[in-house]
């Protein structure tokens, strides 16, 4: 699935990373704990998180994650958007809960990391 398809099925609000929309994503990982994200070894992961700060973007950069869904109606700050643009990360705001986003993506075929 492409990031564009993820944005479409979630009806999410893309706030950065237009040039990442054709990238493929295969796995999903939901966490508000960045320490857990840093232990992931797979690639092509979407991160779903309610943690909206600059370290969410930094952690994704280090983990080769180029698509972040901010759930629970969390809004990206201007610093987050700038860093996401600079590091090539698609940042998507989603008004619903983590469970809601996960259930939509799971039905659409996004797999768990483990």
């Amino acid at each position: 699935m492409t990031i564009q398809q993820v944005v479409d099925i979630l009806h999410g609000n893309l706030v950065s990373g237009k040039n990442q929309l054709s990238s493929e994503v295969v796995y999903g990982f939901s966490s508000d704990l960045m320490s857990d994200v840093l232990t992931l070894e797979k690639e092509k992961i979407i991160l779903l998180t309610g943690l909206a700060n600059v370290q969410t973007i930094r952690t994704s950069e280090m983990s080769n994650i180029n698509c972040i869904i901010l759930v629970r109606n969390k809004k990206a700050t201007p610093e987050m958007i700038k860093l996401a643009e600079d590091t090539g990360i698609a940042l998507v705001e989603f008004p619903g809960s983590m469970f809601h986003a996960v259930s939509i993506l799971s039905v659409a075929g996004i797999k768990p990391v483990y």
Partner: protein
Amino acid sequence: MQYTFHIEGGNFANTGVASSEIKKRLKQLNLNAQTIKRIVVALYEAEVNVVAHAYNGDIFVDLTSSSIHILVKDEGPGIPDIEQAMQEGFSTATEEVREMGFGAGMGLPNIKKNADHLDIRSTVGKGTEVEITIYLNHDQKTE
């Protein structure tokens, strides 16, 4: 090639700047993507530790054709019991650190997992030195 970076304790806004810079440079060197990830994750965890626990610190990176050697040296409270600090789940992080998504007691174990060699020396009341070595695997093709 050698690089140095300064880190301010408590400054979460700039945490990851050094790791990001090193990642950019490693990507230019035709290295295996998994090796780059191991290096930047280990370095980033070490950066977060300095910001979370120390007053300030410096990172010294020595990159050769066969390995990367990273020394992270901080001035801070030090670690009284390194063996305990290496246990997954052990943490002395503040609420502020936890709000940033860290402080779950996984940083040092994750550095160990990603490093080929890890050496930690600490003096209580003075500071901590974390030394990480990772061997480089070159891909045959450009990624």
